[in-house]
């Protein structure tokens, strides 16, 4: 029985073939592509060295010389944001790849193996899902420290539990279909069935899931950095950029709003796509999106 819903969605498999994006969806895609391009080219476009003190004054207002103004130490915020985007997205991308590969592997394996293997894996997975993700992350970081590999692997493993659920559910549907039953009757091995029959047929929805998971990873890593427990200075991802400039807020400068908007825009972009897909395929999004 699957009645519990985690605070993140066990997405709603959106049949990717049937889904055609509408205007809102394309806006979402454009936002995500924009950030991906910045992640790739940001370091080249950045007008200044992100660690260079370009001005004696911190918290300068945006100007032609410094497009987004300067940060609390007098560094160019625009350059820091461009370079920070790369760090943010690369960390999130690796974490999501870990989550997807581990989660899909175990999920599909559990579904195809069935019996006590499925039972055991699912129980353990449910137990991990019963942690609020932020708290689980905090406990692990308290033990292992805020090193980037720890952050990335922790994020990956935390989200692999949600991927496990999705991929297991998808694979369960497949396992009952005729061609899998026929393959079993033919005497094909478990791994052959996974690789040749099940995986190719659940690839599209898993790809949609990957996109959602990527955004969760970005939000999660940013939240950790914002709390001062993620990426440590002088490196900076989006969350760190918000945190380190937060002090300016009380003196009336709006510097932290720019990196905070970057994070929000990514989330909005993704939600536009998911919402569009969900309405178009006639499904309501069950569960919490962010």
């Amino acid at each position: 029985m699957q009645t519990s819903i985690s605070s993140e969605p066990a997405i709603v498999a959106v049949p990717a073939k049937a889904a055609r994006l509408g205007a809102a969806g394309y806006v979402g895609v454009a936002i995500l592509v924009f950030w991906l391009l910045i992640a790739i080219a940001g370091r080249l476009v950045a007008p200044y060295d992100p660690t260079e003190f370009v001005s004696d004054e911190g918290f300068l207002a945006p100007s032609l010389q410094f497009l987004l103004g300067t940060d609390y130490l007098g560094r160019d915020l625009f350059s820091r944001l461009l370079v920070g985007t790369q760090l943010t997205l690369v960390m999130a991308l690796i974490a999501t790849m870990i989550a997807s590969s581990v989660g899909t592997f175990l999920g599909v394996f559990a579904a195809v193996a069935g019996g006590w293997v499925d039972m055991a894996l699912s129980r353990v997975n449910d137990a991990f899902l019963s942690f609020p993700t932020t708290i689980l992350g905090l406990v692990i970081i308290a033990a292992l420290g805020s090193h980037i590999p720890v952050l990335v692997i922790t994020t990956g493993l935390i989200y692999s539990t949600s991927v496990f659920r999705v991929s297991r559910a998808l694979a369960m549907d497949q396992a009952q279909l005729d061609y899998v039953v026929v393959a079993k009757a033919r005497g094909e091995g478990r791994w052959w069935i996974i690789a040749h029959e099940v995986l190719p047929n659940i690839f599209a929805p898993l790809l949609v899931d990957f996109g959602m998971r990527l955004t969760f990873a970005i939000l999660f890593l940013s939240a950790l950095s914002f709390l001062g427990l993620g990426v440590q200075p002088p490196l900076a991802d989006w969350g760190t950029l918000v945190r380190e400039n937060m002090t300016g807020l009380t003196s009336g400068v709006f510097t932290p709003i720019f990196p905070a908007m970057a994070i929000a825009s990514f989330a909005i972009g993704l939600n536009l796509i998911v919402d569009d897909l969900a309405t178009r395929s006639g499904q309501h999004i069950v569960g919490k999106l962010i």
Partner: protein
Amino acid sequence: MKGQALFATLILKRAGAGIFTLWFVSILVFAASAILPGDVAEAVLGQSATPETIAALREKLGLTRPLWEQYGDWLFGFVSGDLGQSLASGADVTQLIMDRLSNTLLLGGLTAAIAVPFALLIGLVAATFPGSAGDRAVTIGSLVLVSVPEYLMATILVMIFAIKLGWFPAVSYTTEFTSFGHLFSVMVLPILALSASITAQMARMTRATVLNILGSTFIEMALLKGVSRWRIIFTHALPNAIGPIANVVALNLAYLLSGVVIVETIFAYPGLAKLLVDAVASRDFPVVQSCALIFCASYTVLMLVADVLAILANPRLRRGGH
């Protein structure tokens, strides 16, 4: 009554799974300190440690005993209300947590008390007039709000109401309230920041649930009989929507637990989440463990409530099969 017995079994089973989950969570939280490179004694003594002082402190903290024994002691202490001493300040963890817990409950309670009715109301109104301007505003506005992380929401709120207008303080580090007005001015920004995303989410789900029910044949029947719009909503659709909506509310309150971590940090609000974050930064393990366990327990309970509500709401589950 066979049906009711099955129904009770189902809920008992779910509660049993909840207790098992809590037990598993306690092991995991405890294990986190066991995988700490070095151990707590080294962490406490830091640079000034000599092998002798480490050994002495290990003995004193009981770290030389087998792990399962330490775990047993810790769990027993937790259940009986003795959470040990903070490594950072030496203060009694139980005392530390009690002070903070009431503050967090105040913040969370007020947020829930405001967000839940408001979300249900706008969700219902949007569903009553689907496609109207109001409905579109709710749909689009909530989509944006759902995507806005708490710290952006908090930043914008502070920018407008604390800096530009100067109506409320930008930080809320006091909980010694002198009057209702004082309480309001201190709490209003944290509550707004915390409630924005869950209000949006709950409104969306309420709208979707009610619209879903409005599409069913018994509603069409009522419409054809000429029943008024409001009567259909309140006497036909709403009773059927209450179960799923209650489930959504419980899930969102569970989500509040994560949001509270961010919001308390931004506003320097002296709550349990701020205590946890500070303890993680200083690697104060007894405090981290206790706070984490409290958060996880609340989360598990809310999830349990959500599941039980889902069972209650779904007649197919109520009959114990599907």
